[in-house]
């Protein structure tokens, strides 16, 4: 179908620090199982460095499961199994001998609901660096400030770093969680519907934040909000469940292609709102 433009959608436009595409993460034939149930089937996906990749699809199609297989969060669920290759800079991080703790540092995660620790704002962000043996106050101060600035939160909390993180608003807490994830300088940041629990203004701030930090990080975001995917991402992947209730990758392309001239009818139906 040509020229299907549904409504004025802003397509992501940020200047890229690396004009050529460099492959950062590659998913090959990934399948995920919970016991006997196959939650994901044959997922193939490429994520490029310093770009934002969005994963969209109706709820329940396995987007979160996919994200959580990147950093082995599925290991926490009993009977969960992930097969296939997940290549980070060419090395398979889904293999048996991988250092899970290190993978989790390199792939930072922001959750749907903000989950700060019941500690001070400072201690939340310093949590990661402290694990890595950074003890000197001057070093920690520096890292904490840098991370909170990157999360666009510094001006709001710079005077109350030692107050409890739980006293912040929802949007602030989520940006704090982003700062916490940034403090250990991951290479990839995956966000599982980071703004779905927040108000529109906080949502916008997080989207701006993403545009700002993408020059240093690779970002993968799961969202059920199509306008957000269109606004923010460079690439979009469309997922859906098949007849066996297993999630599959339907289509994957540059964002403007997905939203204006998708190749698969199902994608077209979804983005035009006819379904899902």
């Amino acid at each position, binding site marked *: 179908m040509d020229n299907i433009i549904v409504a004025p959608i802003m397509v992501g436009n940020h200047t890229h620090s690396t004009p050529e595409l460099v492959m950062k993460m590659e998913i090959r034939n990934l399948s995920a199982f919970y016991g006997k149930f196959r939650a994901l089937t044959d997922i193939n996906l490429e994520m490029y460095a310093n770009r934002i990749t969005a994963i969209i699809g109706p709820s329940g199609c396995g987007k979160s499961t996919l994200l959580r297989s990147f*950093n082995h*969060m599925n290991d*926490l669920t*009993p009977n969960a199994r992930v097969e296939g290759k997940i290549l980070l800079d060419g090395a398979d991080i889904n293999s048996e001998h991988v250092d899970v*703790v*290190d993978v*989790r*540092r390199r792939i*930072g*995660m922001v*959750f749907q*609901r903000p*989950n*700060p*620790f*019941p*500690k001070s704002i400072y201690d939340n962000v310093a*949590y*990661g660096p402290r*694990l890595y043996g950074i003890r000197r106050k001057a070093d920690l101060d520096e890292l904490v400030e840098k991370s909170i600035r990157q999360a666009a939160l510094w001006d709001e909390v710079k005077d109350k770093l030692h107050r409890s993180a739980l006293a912040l608003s929802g949007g602030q807490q989520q940006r704090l*969680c982003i700062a*916490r*994830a940034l403090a*250990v300088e991951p290479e990839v940041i995956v966000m599982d519907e980071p703004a779905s629990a927040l108000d529109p203004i906080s949502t916008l701030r997080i989207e701006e934040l993403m545009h700002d930090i993408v020059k240093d990080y690779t970002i993968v975001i799961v969202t059920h909000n199509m306008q957000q995917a269109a606004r923010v991402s460079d690439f979009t992947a469309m997922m859906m469940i098949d007849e066996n209730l297993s999630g599959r990758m339907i289509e994957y392309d540059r964002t403007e292609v997905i939203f204006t001239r998708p190749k698969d009818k199902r994608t077209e139906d979804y983005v035009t709102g006819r379904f899902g």
Partner: protein
Amino acid sequence: MHTHAKTLSEAQLLKRLRRCFQHGDRPWQGILITISILIMVLILAIGWMLWRESADARSLFGLKFLLPTSDASWDPVNDHFQAWPFIFGTLLTSLVAILLALPISLGIAIFLAELCPEWLRLPLNWLVELLAAIPSVVYGLWGIFVFLPLVVAPVGQALANTLGHIPGLGLLFTGPMPQSGSSRLGAALILTIMIIPTITAVTRDVLLAIPNHQREASLAIGATQWETIWQVVLPYSLSGILGAVILGLGRALGETMAVTMVIGNSIEGTPSLLRPGYTMASVIANEFAEAVTKLHTQALIEVGLVLFFITLLLNMIAQLLVWRVARRTPQEARA
């Protein structure tokens, strides 16, 4: 005339009964409320009874009954009583028991809540609870004939040889330990075993109540499982753990039979763990049935009163602490 009046009132009575049972809610509520109030009153009644029945002893000995003193004497013959040795014995054995039981219980609770595979969880919980189901006298019997000679005596000997020589702390470890092994150490060790289920069960529940998203947040940053437990899960549950410990302490203070059977039941001048001792519960258990003079009986009841108040206070504090944790953590908890 007479019979007529009687039948009338019978009919009235029946009518009232029928109405009562038809709706019956008011009397029902009344019964429930009365029973509930009575139960609350029970605690006050216990305290009041103890207070009343020890009146003479209290007025005679005053506060000196309780205070630490170097010339304590418990003399039924001459009707002179001072309870400090028992208070000391109770406190010493219970505190040592808590010191030993806390890390063990914490470890077990962490294992049960965080690490245990699903299929093992229920059986292990049962086993730990079974430890609490063994009657106290059975612990005591095993204590006298097995635990004391095989464990307490050698441990005591080892402690005397090592720690007994340190100035200060060594006072707690100077012997000689009696041949049988009956000692405060024996009592403390048996108490440790007996309060582990209490502390473990409460701590485990407190840990399980912590929402999973906290653990996920920590692990996602790249923390190891232990780091997550130590730096996120445990600090979150501190007040609940404190409540568990206080509950355990309360149990240790009131434990009677097992302690009586292994502690040696003698008033001892030194503070050493290796020597036999006496606790408040033990002296009551040993002497009450044979107390001859009224004052002796009253003095024993006064000891019971002190025990009652201490455990009452501890229990109230513990309940408040555990309540606080239960109310603070939201619904989303670990499956």
